[in-house]
């Protein structure tokens, strides 16, 4: 095994009294594509959001490229706490891209400006250079003809593809997708999934939370079933989706396929 590019160790997350993640560990190798499935409210989003520190982990460590993030401090009570500097978190987030269910595009910027924004402000790239990168990413998602449109003028599927291009423009080492097609009309789901598959073909490292089990099956190198705040079952798509061993996984899949035809 090579050294993992992302390593999560004993991750816990609580919201007040609610213990959502109860000790999750995961090593991600470069080029792996991991699909995370699970019931609503099981903590899939929370797990993904802890990885790029949209949520602060309550406990546990995250390492990128072998470097543990944050610094350990002893509290007066003798407990250990991990502190994170804003600078470090910004650097991490620039290296770990994220695509949201609700797109979260900037409505006051055009498509091109949305994709250039991170390059110009965060990476301090020259405008011409940023434009070039943005253009090539927008071409990849099939939107090079809508550069000057505002997000509100685009369909949901187009907006999500802009969001993918915006994440890609930063040249992230890992991309996180949180149900990227869940807020789309059914006929628009395909175009977004196709864009994601192009990234898979490029060998990018990706973590995807999804309810599209069919896509997960074809897309992923590894499938994780999250339940009760832990990884209940982990394996290849074949193992988890076709021949699950755990009772809970079986029930989840049965409920999921109830109305399949």
């Amino acid at each position, binding site marked *: 095994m090579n050294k993992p590019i992302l390593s999560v160790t004993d991750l816990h997350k609580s919201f007040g009294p609610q213990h959502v993640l109860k000790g999750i560990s995961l090593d991600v190798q470069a080029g792996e594509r991991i699909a995370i499935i699970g019931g609503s409210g099981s903590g899939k989003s929370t797990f993904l959001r802890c990885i790029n520190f*949209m949520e602060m982990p309550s406990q546990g460590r995250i390492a990128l490229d072998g470097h543990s993030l944050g610094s350990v401090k002893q509290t007066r009570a003798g407990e250990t706490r991990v502190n994170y500097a*804003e600078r470090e978190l910004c650097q991490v*987030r620039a290296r770990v891209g994220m695509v*949201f269910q609700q797109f*979260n595009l900037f409505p006051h910027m055009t498509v091109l400006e949305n994709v250039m924004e991170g390059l110009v402000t*965060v990476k301090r790239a020259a405008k011409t250079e940023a434009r070039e990168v943005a253009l090539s990413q927008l071409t990849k998602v099939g939107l090079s003809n809508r550069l000057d449109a*505002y997000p509100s003028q685009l369909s949901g599927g187009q907006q999500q593809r802009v969001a993918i291009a*915006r*994440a890609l423009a930063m040249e992230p080492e890992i991309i996180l997708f949180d149900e990227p097609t869940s807020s789309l009309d059914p006929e628009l789901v395909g175009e977004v999934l196709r864009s994601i598959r192009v990234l898979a073909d490029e060998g990018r490292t990706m973590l995807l939370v999804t309810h599209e089990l069919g896509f997960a099956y074809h897309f992923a190198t590894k499938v994780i079933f999250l339940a009760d705040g832990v990884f209940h079952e982990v394996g290849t798509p074949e193992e988890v989706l076709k021949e699950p061993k755990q009772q809970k996984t079986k029930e989840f899949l049965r409920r999921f396929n109830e109305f399949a035809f």
Partner: protein
Amino acid sequence: MDYQFDFSVVTQNFGALLQGLLVTAELWVICAAGGATLGVCIALARLSPRRWLSLPSLVYVQLFRNTPVLIQLIWFYYAFPIVVGQQLTPFVAVVLGLGLNTSAYCAEIFRGGIISLTRGQWEGAKAIGMSQSMALRRVIMPQVFRRMLPALTNRVIEVGKMSSLASVLSVPELMYQGRLLSSTFYRPFEVITTLAIIYFLLIFPSGLFSRWLEVRMARGK
């Protein structure tokens, strides 16, 4: 009505009015711009999770919004010097009173605008590696400004009109000059009517300008 109109008092003393107009414009620009800028800071303090920032800013806003602005101006001229041990010129007292008053109102406008933006905008910005201040500058505030433009315009217009209160402290702005002329020549009708027209001509275009700006910005909604 057998009153004889005589606007010569206005035409012959137009220079004095013009000087007053300049001072009014000066007050207006300083108080509006300074108030809006300070308003952003106070809005951020109001929204801070740190109580030592949010609490004082809450008190500040409530004080300025719940007392008459005329009292605030007079207070800064007569009472504030006692607190700081330094006499202020009437102009500075007015700038302080009117500017801080404006900042309190603007703070509430900005706060409302920031709250109304969804968490998603912060996250979209953070997800590409932006720091808090970068996100604020590039993503949040431009949208807040757009949304709050009508409310901000109202405030700016209000400041323009309130600047006439400075005449109470003998700041030689438009209103003061006008009152001086009017009482010197006993021509209140001509002078005060002219004043009203000048204020109108000064303030009306700013409303038009903001309408134009709103339409222009609406594209990126």
